[in-house]
């Protein structure tokens, strides 16, 4: 990753927050979607070099992360039965 040192760590920490919070979404389809989108968009922007573009992407991601955090809490407040493709136990 050509991103400068401190911002690379910052981005990785942000990615971790995206994955953790997406994992907490109760609804199967929404969980899988936000995991997929986090993976795709971080990877798609892997080679972005311009510092302006990077800081723009970071502030956009911060906004999205706020939405994700709120919505993952809400999804735990009103839950539904699991889907037929969802294992009931994790292990």
């Amino acid at each position, binding site marked *: 990753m050509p991103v400068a040192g401190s911002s690379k760590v910052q981005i990785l920490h942000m990615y971790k927050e995206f*994955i953790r919070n997406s994992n907490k979404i109760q609804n199967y389809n929404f969980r899988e979607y936000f995991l997929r989108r986090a993976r795709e968009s971080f990877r798609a922007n892997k080679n972005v070099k311009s510092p302006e573009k990077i800081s723009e992407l970071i502030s956009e991601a911060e906004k999205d992360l706020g939405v994700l*955090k709120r919505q993952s809490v809400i999804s735990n407040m009103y839950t539904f039965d699991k889907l037929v493709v969802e294992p009931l136990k994790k292990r």
Partner: protein
Amino acid sequence: MFRSVFRAAPALTRVSGMRSGFVKPTFSVASRFYASSTLSKDEITTRIADVIKSFDKTAAAASITGETQFSKDLGLDSLDTVELLVSIEEEFDIEFPDKVADELKSVGETVDYISNNPEAN
């Protein structure tokens, strides 16, 4: 039963201090009290190997030991490594502090951290 609950109490207060420990359903914590909080290194290694196998199918064949490096041996990039560590966190019901997670580069280092962490189960 009470003994195990009280033993788990420090773990619970710790979670509340974490940034994103806000949706831990409490009953799932309760169901894991059968396990001792001190796990053997072998057991930890086996469970991490299982996590890696379900995380990345290509690694299933490769034998995973303490020496296995995430990037060099498993071919994971920095984003993959972050994701793998989150899966390992979920497996052991702990959260690596950012500073620790940034330094974990191999299965062995991860095993060491978990085995020294009394909250892992």
